């Protein structure tokens, strides 16, 4: 059960081959292999995202210049009201700063991305494991985490160093990963298609709610 056999599972997982997850489940060190895979993917992704962010920075105008143009634009109602609202919304300007980080800040992707990938995998895996058990699943936590780690393979479509931050590619990869997670949960717990779907949906919803609550608390605290 070597690294090449693990790597060979990746394209099969990308193309929704359910048997790939069954083979991952059988690996004696599925959890450790899954963690190593996501760490390597996260490192490569961090490098690609950092390059994309730097390319975006050099080809787009500064946020201060954009703010200046918005402030001095003479527009009739209702456009003027919308522009005034945009200028007041700090979160929108923060989003613009995220979409165009300075080159040194872009290097943060190198550290943040692998940690985010690993943290998201553990959180989602634990939630999906709980939901699958509630729906009659029979897999162990190690098997669930091993299979859901492989289901992170679609993030590899973002390994293009030209992609700007905050672009539709993340949405595309996220949808792909979610579909793959359903297959992973199905294989790990020997569930039928619909139960695997609901277990995955419940885990994804719970994670999204937890993140939204965390963001709200952080925003209120600030």
């Amino acid at each position, binding site marked *: 059960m070597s690294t090449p056999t693990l790597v060979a599972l990746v394209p099969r997982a990308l*193309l*929704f*081959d359910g048997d790939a997850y069954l083979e991952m489940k059988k690996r004696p060190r599925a959890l450790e292999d899954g963690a190593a895979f996501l760490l390597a993917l996260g490192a490569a992704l961090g490098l690609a995202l950092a390059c994309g962010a730097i*390319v*975006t*920075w*050099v*080809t*787009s*105008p*500064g946020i201060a*210049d*954009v703010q200046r*143009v*918005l402030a001095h*634009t*003479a*527009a*009739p*109602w*209702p*456009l003027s009201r919308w522009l005034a609202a945009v200028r007041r919304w700090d979160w929108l300007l923060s989003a613009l700063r995220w979409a165009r980080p300075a080159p040194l800040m872009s290097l943060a992707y190198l550290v943040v991305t692998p940690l985010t990938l690993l943290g998201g995998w553990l959180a989602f895996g634990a939630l999906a494991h709980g939901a699958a058990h509630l729906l009659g699943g029979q897999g162990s936590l190690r098997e669930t985490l091993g299979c859901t780690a492989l289901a992170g393979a679609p993030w590899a*479509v973002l390994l*293009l160093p*030209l*992609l*700007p931050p905050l*672009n*539709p*590619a993340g*949405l*595309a990869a996220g*949808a*792909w990963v979610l*579909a793959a997670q359903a*297959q992973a949960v199905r294989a790990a717990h020997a569930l039928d*298609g*619909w139960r695997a*779907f609901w277990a995955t949906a419940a885990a994804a919803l719970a994670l999204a709610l937890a993140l939204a609550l965390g963001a709200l608390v952080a925003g209120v605290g600030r």
Partner: protein
Amino acid sequence: MGDVLATAWRAARLDADALRRWGLAPALALFLAVSLLGGVADGLTWAQARLQRGQLTLARERLAARVDNWLLYSPLPLDAQHTLARNIAAWLDLEGDLEGLPTPLGGGAAVAVAALQRAVVAPYRALALWLPYTLAVFALARAFGGRGSLREMLAAGALSALPHLLDPLGVLLGIAPLVGMVTAGWGAAILVKATRVVHGLEAGPALIAAVTPGLAALALALLAVGLALWLR
């Protein structure tokens, strides 16, 4: 290669056997290639427009004047027409001002790199729209008793991108909205046929499965706009 092209042409003409024959890997590759072609056409047109800023300014002024004329034929009251026309003209001016801002790289190099980014983002944008939509169609088709697998649905559904090979033509001829409507309708027809063929459904359930996610998204969008207007 000839066989692939012949099968693709038959699939575009809604041939059931041709829709069934595609594997997921070649279908996805075709989908991404078609989207990339559209992205390259869009990137080249955008770069050309940005490099000829004087002509771009003139084009914006002409568009604002055309909108003013079109609104005269609309049922809106005169003051609403005037407000709408002034807002569109102000928006186009703002767009021009933002595009004129300096960038760290500067000049033609920045435009070339930004155009390349636009081109490579296009397949991802298409994937971000197509994949969740097709997954929703798959779930609905299975709920209606469909028997197809996820791989088969995605493979046949990816062929809905085939008509979009005509999109760059629309951009070049300046009739992109018209061509876009035709290719979108043709792509939707391929998706409905693919749903029917893959899942063994009758026409009615296949059509409902294929269009419901779109109608639901439209309803949510209208609800959001209505809510925003009401809260204003």
